[in-house]
């Protein structure tokens, strides 16, 4: 990651906007799950503006990486005042806003935000391998509960 992007992410992280649960939210969307340590949940509240339903406020909670938090912070500001349709039409790179183009390894973090937004606003959630069985992930390899395993010592107590 280049220094400029890291600086922008650090700035967004230092003062994240709209973090936390939104009381009386009209819609909630979640992508990922907290068991795997990578989850983003978004709450949205609407208001009526000149006869149109627009987003009054959106908040988020993330157990993901710092890029996801930075993008969610910017995106929840960006969608304020937009109709659900306008918000859903935003592309991943638009949600990342002033962070600018993200390197390939960070695009997924922004997609996490897009997925939560789609889930909240009733659109289709982005699923990487929809309709197919997913291969075990790295996270599965080291974070699944290890049950029924017996420990046998190889030596006598020292």
């Amino acid at each position, binding site marked *: 990651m280049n220094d400029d992007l890291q600086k922008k992410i650090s700035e967004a992280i230092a003062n994240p906007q709209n973090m936390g649960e939104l009381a009386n939210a009209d819609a909630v969307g979640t992508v990922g799950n907290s068991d795997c340590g990578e989850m983003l949940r978004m709450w949205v509240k609407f208001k009526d503006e000149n006869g149109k339903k627009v987003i009054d406020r959106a908040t988020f909670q993330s157990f993901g990486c710092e890029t996801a938090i930075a993008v969610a912070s910017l995106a929840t500001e960006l969608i304020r005042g937009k109709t659900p349709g306008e918000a859903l039409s935003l592309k991943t790179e638009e949600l990342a806003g002033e962070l600018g183009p993200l390197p390939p390894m960070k695009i997924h973090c922004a997609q996490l935000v897009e997925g939560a937004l789609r889930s909240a606003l009733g659109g289709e959630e982005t699923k*990487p391998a929809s309709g197919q069985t997913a291969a075990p992930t790295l996270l599965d390899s080291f974070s699944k509960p290890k049950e029924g395993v017996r*420990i046998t010592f190889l030596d006598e107590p020292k």
Partner: protein
Amino acid sequence: MRDVLEKFPGAQRALFRRYHIGGCSSCGFSPDETLAHVCERNGGLDVNEVLAHIQSSHEQDAKILISPKELADTLKEDKSVRIVDVRSRDEFEVVRIEGSQLLSQDVMRQIMGDGSNTRPLVVVDHQGKQGLDAAAYFMGHGLQNVRCLRGGIDAWAQEVDTGMRRYKLS
């Protein structure tokens, strides 16, 4: 992808470290997908470049490893090193490296959100397999100073703390 993973056991780690692919359910892939398809739906990555990266995955895994002796020496000099143990709680309670933390959701959140992506992090497992996956997972999230204990705590018990009991899982 099934064939790719069979031929290059470290491919998934290599993919996640650099491209954030295959680490968790949100960025996972199907064994039936082709590499070209995975590249296409992840921002149109160059298949040849990704393939070259996968082909060097074994070499890259080797660079992440830290020997028990080197870790012991590092711990004497650098108190900021965070040791994360990815074994089960039962194993952790039986034997562990002093100062290490058992990986939990809280610890995961601390690691991801402590504001530093350069703090040294060493992953410990039983015998050196799952630790590599965990190290790749953290590196794929942007952490820049991640190592994995070569041979896990079993090697630590043989090469550094010879009073530590060794065990097997059955």
